[in-house]
């Protein structure tokens, strides 16, 4: 999800009025509401649309049901999967547990939690400086953060793995520790740019009034700016979590031995284990899927608006 060209997001709040205060006006869908001119009246077009929607759901969402049905089924081979489980069982999860899946999940949660906390902190601080201060070299610094997006882990994997084994100046070996995964994820250009754009739109009057009251920089950020940035922080949080949870190469090269793997990387261990069947791999997949699913469903609104707002500005 690192995206060199997605332009920063404008305040999402401006577009979507507060959910609680005013109920969004429900206009009746007119003929010209959509590009294809869909309408709600039963008819040929209506039936066609329902049919196509059903196909879209079957293609994009239904395969996820096979993960669940397979994970709770007692079939050893993994072939003959269906959308509904037969002979429900938790055996697959027990076997996956014996193979250490919960430890891997623990690694993942520590990395995702710590990584996200660090990322949000670092990016918020940088965005605050870029948005609310003027200083020499500002454009250059912005360019540097944008460049972090063009240096994904894939492209710098080999030297990065050397750096993780021996961090310059301090000469620490981060391999095999969660820091090896967390620290490289700290500075994420996307969040910096998005938060900067958002913070720029906070009126200076609010800031000036606070300064007259003698509010210092950190309190200004924490008590004045951050509460006004909640929508942007939501987007940065969801996208950041999904980006960190999706990491594959970084946990791989930052590990000393397989016990350091995250749960997504550990799926390959389950798969290559000749003693376990596909049901166990799918049980692992369920465990790796649930956290991102929860985050997405809780915050999908801000995620989708975030991606959309980020894209349309261009």
């Amino acid at each position, binding site marked *: 999800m690192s995206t060199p*060209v*997605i332009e920063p997001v404008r305040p999402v709040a401006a577009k979507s009025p507060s959910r609680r205060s005013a109920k969004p006006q429900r206009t009746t*869908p007119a*003929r*010209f*509401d959509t*590009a*294809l*001119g*869909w309408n709600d009246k039963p008819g040929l077009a209506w039936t066609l649309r329902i049919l196509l*929607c059903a196909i*879209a759901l079957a293609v*994009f*969402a239904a395969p996820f049901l*096979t*993960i669940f049905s*397979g994970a709770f089924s007692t079939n050893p081979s*993994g*072939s003959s*999967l269906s959308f509904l489980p037969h002979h429900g069982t938790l055996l697959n999860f027990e076997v996956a547990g014996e193979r250490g899946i919960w430890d891997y999940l623990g690694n993942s949660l520590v990395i995702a939690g710590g990584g996200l906390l660090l990322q949000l902190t*670092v990016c918020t*601080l*940088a965005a605050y*400086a*870029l948005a609310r201060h003027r*200083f020499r070299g500002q454009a250059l610094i912005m360019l540097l*953060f944008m460049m972090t997006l*063009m*240096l994904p882990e*894939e492209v*710098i*994997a*080999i*030297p*990065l793995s*050397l*750096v993780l084994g021996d*961090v*310059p100046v301090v000469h620490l070996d981060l391999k095999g520790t969660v820091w090896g995964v967390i620290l*490289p994820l700290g*500075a994420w250009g996307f969040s910096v740019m998005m938060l900067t754009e958002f913070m720029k739109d906070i009126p200076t009057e609010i800031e000036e009034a606070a300064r007259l009251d003698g509010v210092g*920089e950190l309190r200004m950020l924490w008590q004045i700016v951050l509460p006004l940035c909640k929508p942007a922080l939501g987007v940065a949080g969801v996208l950041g979590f999904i980006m960190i949870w999706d990491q*594959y*190469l970084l946990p791989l090269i930052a590990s000393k031995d397989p016990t350091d793997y995250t749960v*997504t990387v550990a*799926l390959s261990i389950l*798969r290559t284990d000749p003693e376990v069947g*596909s049901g166990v791999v799918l049980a*692992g*997949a369920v465990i790796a*899927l649930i956290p*991102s*699913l929860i985050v997405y469903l809780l915050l999908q609104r801000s*995620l*989708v608006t975030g*991606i*959309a707002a980020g*894209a*349309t500005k*261009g």
Partner: protein
Amino acid sequence: MTATVPAPAARRVLGAISRKSVVPWLFLAPGLLLALVFKFWPMAKGVWLSFHDVRPFLGDKWTGLDNYTRVLSDHRFQDAIGHTLVLGIGQSLGAILLGIVLALLLEGQARSLKFIRTAVFLPAVTATAVVGELWRLMYYPTSDGLLNSGLHLLGLGPVQYLDDPNLALYSTMVMGIWIWAPYNMVIILAGLAGVDRTLYEAAAMDGVSLWQRLRHVTLPAIRPALSIVLTLAAIRGLRVFTEVYVLTGGGPAGSTEVWMTRAYTLGFTRNDIGGASAASVVLLCVTLLLTVTVNHFRKRGDVR
């Protein structure tokens, strides 16, 4: 890792230096430090390594462009570049087309449509490794595998999706389209939301066909969204790694080997760190070139 909180005494000293100019740098310090150590330093090191014969314990030896010529003339690497292009282009165009279709289909305000959009977006938020396991099982090669049992109903024999060297790359491509089409859908939907509705009405007054309306009203309006989608897809296609690594590992017989899996194998399995670095540097240059070119054309398009 957070910025240092100056104690009252220290704050007074800082204030004496010129508080205003120091403050922003204190806030920027953590981010710049992390980017420097874990992004820019490795990049510089990668460039350096790419010109050297890396020999542990003996010291690295300058070899000039040897790594580059060796890597670029290696036929396995040339194959990998070819696969990257086929996979990248096919996957990008497929995902964009499907994204447009999905966006046109799922555009609207109804609550049921929002639910469907949420469900359809699932592939884009699921970790690639999980998606890989899912598709590996859907591609199960025996006749009772999920996709093969569908084919079986149609009276077609089991297909070796991932084990057939002629098919494996395309099987990987289909998974890539499946992952990225919903993502593109969201961006295109946002573009569609910005279309001026009165233009649709005017077009209807003029009695133009649906196709003409899409071609002359909708398409120009979503062009910015499309150009973003295209850029993102191209860059993603170039550095594709996880999808391939999880699904096929580059096999069978190297038929799905792409740029980054090849570089990974060179660096971590063959221990040819110089060669792997050279491959990465070339990829980095191509990515940068692509980004700059596309941005150039986008800017020009905006002016017009």
